[in-house]
Every structure is written in C-alpha cells, then in structure tokens.
C-alpha cells in the first residue's frame, strides 16, 4: 500500500464511513427512534435540545462522558469492558469499508467471510459488557443475550450469505459484499431470495440489537437493566454510542444488500442518495413500529420464535445455492 492509500484507508475507518459517521448516524437514529416511539405512544419525545430535539442524544452522551464522574463497582473489570466496547466500535467501523459508500473500499472474492468475522466482534463486545461485572443481574442479562444470539446470529449470517450468493452468482468476485451492493440487480430468483433473507435478517437484527419484543436481556423490571445495570456515567455513554452505532450499521447493511441501496439509481447520484435515505428511514420506521407495538417475550418464547427465522434464512440459502 502506498502512503496515499494508507491515508485514505485511515480516513475511511476513522471519519467516513467509519467511526465518526457511524457514531453521528447512530445518535441521529436514536433521536428518530425516540421521537417516533414517543409519537406512537402519544408523547412528544425529545424536544428541547436543537430543532425538534434532534441534538438531545448528543447532549445526553456528552453529559455522560464529559460531565458525569467515573464510578465503578467492586469486582467489575473496567479496562476489559472499555477495551471490548472500543473493539466492537472498531469492528463496525472497519466493516463499513466493505461497502460502496466508502472512499477506500476493501473488496475481493469471498470478502463476506471477513465481513461476518467483523460483525461477530460486536456481538462478543456486547456480551462482555455484562460478563465483565460481578453483579448477578448483568450476568443473567448476558446469559439471556447469549441464548438469544445463539439463534439470531446464525440467521443473520446465513441470510447475508444467501443474499450475496444470489447477487454475485455471475460476478467475477463471488460472495463479495461490495459487488452485491454496488452491482445490485433484480430477477425473480433474486427477489425471492432477498425477500426471504430480508425477513430473516430483519428479525435477527431486532433480536441482536435488543429491540422489543426481544429485549429480555435488558428487562428493567426484573433484571434492573440486565446487561447495562452496572453502567453509569462515561461507560454508559460509551455503551450507548456503541449500541446505536450497531443499530445504524445493521440498518445500513440491510438497506444496501437487501433493499438495493439507491437502486434503481446509482451510488453518487443525488436521486440515488435520496432513495437510499428514504429506504433507510422506512426500515427504521418498520423497526420502531414493531418496537412500539409489541410486548416483551420471555427467553424461551424468543428462542422458539427465532428458530423459524433460521429456517427462513436456510430456505433462502438453499434457493440461492441450488438454482
């Protein structure tokens, strides 16, 4: 790699579409979620900071990280906690470089393997949040999260494999995230595979990001916040940033791979960008509507629901592989 490439790669990982972009988009996503859930529940939602309260999530995180004191509890492994959260953020930022919106693109045949490897990091990082504390509530939260993820993560992986197989069947770079997103095409078979894998990926995303009805790992009423029970001040700020960056990342990937990104236009067009944003917002709206419409399910209910999600993704994979 020459110096200019290294600089471009560093810029992409740290600024756009990496760390800074993901954090800002994640917090804007949080604002949209809070506002829409508020409206759906006949509340106003964030209101005071910035126009329509859009800067409220930023103000919350700045307050938690810069103003609140650093507090720890006995038996908590603070450094491990911070290390894994930063590794999770690093993995998400790095994974964004596989997409066509990045100035420096990591691409090649079978790059979906490295992409999946990076996606798994964020799951591990989130589980470690609970496991790094000695509090029984957080550990129980983590064990519930791992139980849920035991079924959600395979569904996530299989559906992304099915989509990339179908989309890059005639490509010179098979199983490539970049090629799947950049050279999006549609046919009857691809539409069937994408529809099935989208349903599966969407539900697995909800389970992975602890959105209702799959939010039992952080149930406030019985686990006092579960995974996040012991976090406060700066660590809570970092956990919020990490969590919403992950939601934004998964929503972006869903928009690019399963919904075609700017299709029928191209990346870089003004119209393409508008279509992309509309699809992203619609996806979030769907996610939030589910969140506001349903109640929390128990772990075994969640697991027996998610096992059908795996079946859907396996059907998509068989369709993509055989035909």
């Amino acid at each position: 790699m020459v110096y200019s490439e290294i600089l471009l790669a560093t810029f992409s990982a740290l600024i756009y579409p990496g760390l800074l972009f993901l954090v800002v988009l994640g917090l804007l996503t949080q604002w949209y979620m809070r506002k829409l859930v508020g409206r759906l529940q006949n509340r106003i939602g964030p209101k005071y900071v910035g126009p329509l309260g859009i800067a409220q999530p930023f103000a919350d995180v700045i307050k938690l990280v810069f103003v609140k004191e650093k507090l720890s509890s006995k038996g908590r492994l603070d450094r491990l906690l911070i290390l894994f959260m930063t590794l999770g953020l690093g993995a998400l930022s790095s994974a964004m470089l596989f997409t066509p919106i990045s100035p420096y693109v990591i691409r090649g045949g079978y790059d979906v393997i490295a992409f999946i490897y990076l996606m798994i990091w964020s799951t591990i990082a989130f589980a470690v949040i609970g496991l790094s504390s000695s509090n029984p509530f957080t550990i129980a939260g983590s064990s519930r999260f791992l139980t849920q993820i035991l079924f959600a993560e395979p569904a996530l992986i299989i559906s992304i494999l099915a989509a990339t197989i179908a989309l890059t069947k005639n490509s010179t770079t098979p199983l490539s995230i970049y090629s799947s997103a950049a050279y999006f095409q549609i046919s009857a078979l691809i539409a069937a595979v994408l529809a099935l894998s989208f349903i599966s990926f969407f539900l697995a995303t909800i389970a992975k990001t602890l959105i209702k009805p799959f939010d039992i790992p952080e149930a406030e009423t019985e686990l006092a916040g579960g995974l996040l029970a012991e976090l406060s001040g700066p660590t809570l700020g970092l956990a919020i940033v990490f969590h919403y960056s992950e939601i934004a990342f998964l929503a972006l990937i869903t928009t690019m791979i399963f919904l075609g990104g700017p299709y029928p236009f191209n990346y870089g067009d003004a119209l393409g960008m508008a279509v992309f944003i509309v699809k992203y917002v619609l996806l979030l709206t769907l996610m939030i509507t589910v969140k506001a419409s349903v109640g929390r399910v128990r772990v075994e209910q969640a697991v027996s629901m998610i096992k059908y999600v795996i079946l859907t993704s396996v059907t998509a994979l068989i369709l993509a592989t055989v035909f």
Partner: protein
Amino acid sequence: MDVLELTLIASSLMLLVALLTYLSYAAVKKGGSSQNLSEPYLCGESVDDFKNSISVGSTNLYWGATSAILSRFYKVLRDEIHTGVLNDWFFYMCIWLVLGVLLSFITISMS
C-alpha cells in the same frame, strides 16, 4: 484483494480505530476508578447473599432453548460445548459459520 489480504487490512483498521477510541476515552477520563468504588447494584438486596453466586452456573445459560424445544441438543451443549468459557461459545458459533462457508464453497464449485 484476496481474502487473507483483505482480512488483514480490515483487522488492522479495526485495531487502529479501537486503539484511538480507547486512548481518547482514557485521555478524557483520567485517573483510576478505585477512588469511586461502590457496591454492586442489587436493588437493595444484601451483597453477602450473592458472594457465593457471583457468576451464573452453566445450567442457567441456554435454559430457554432447552426447556421448550431442544432438550437433547441442549444436553450436548451443556456437557460438551458450554463450559462457562466465552471461547467455547465462540467455537460453537464458528461451527455455524463454517457450515455456511462450506455451503457457499459447494455453490461456487457447482457453478
């Protein structure tokens, strides 16, 4: 790029971002946390009650999967795979991944 090369580049960038985030966080929040130690938050329960159970037993993990649907499968999980170590869980997840990758390789070889 081949898979190895792009994995190395992606992992290096991941570590770079993680390192810079960690250092920025450490710079913002200087000083040890030992001055501000509190008891674990237990909703008013006595800490002494939990001294012997600060980690959840392996039977508690995956209980949802077992009681309802996959009790025999769970038995294998509990006895063979799940030992309470995060690595073992990660290993189990890798089996899923390898299965997916194998299927994709079969596809490529067929096409």
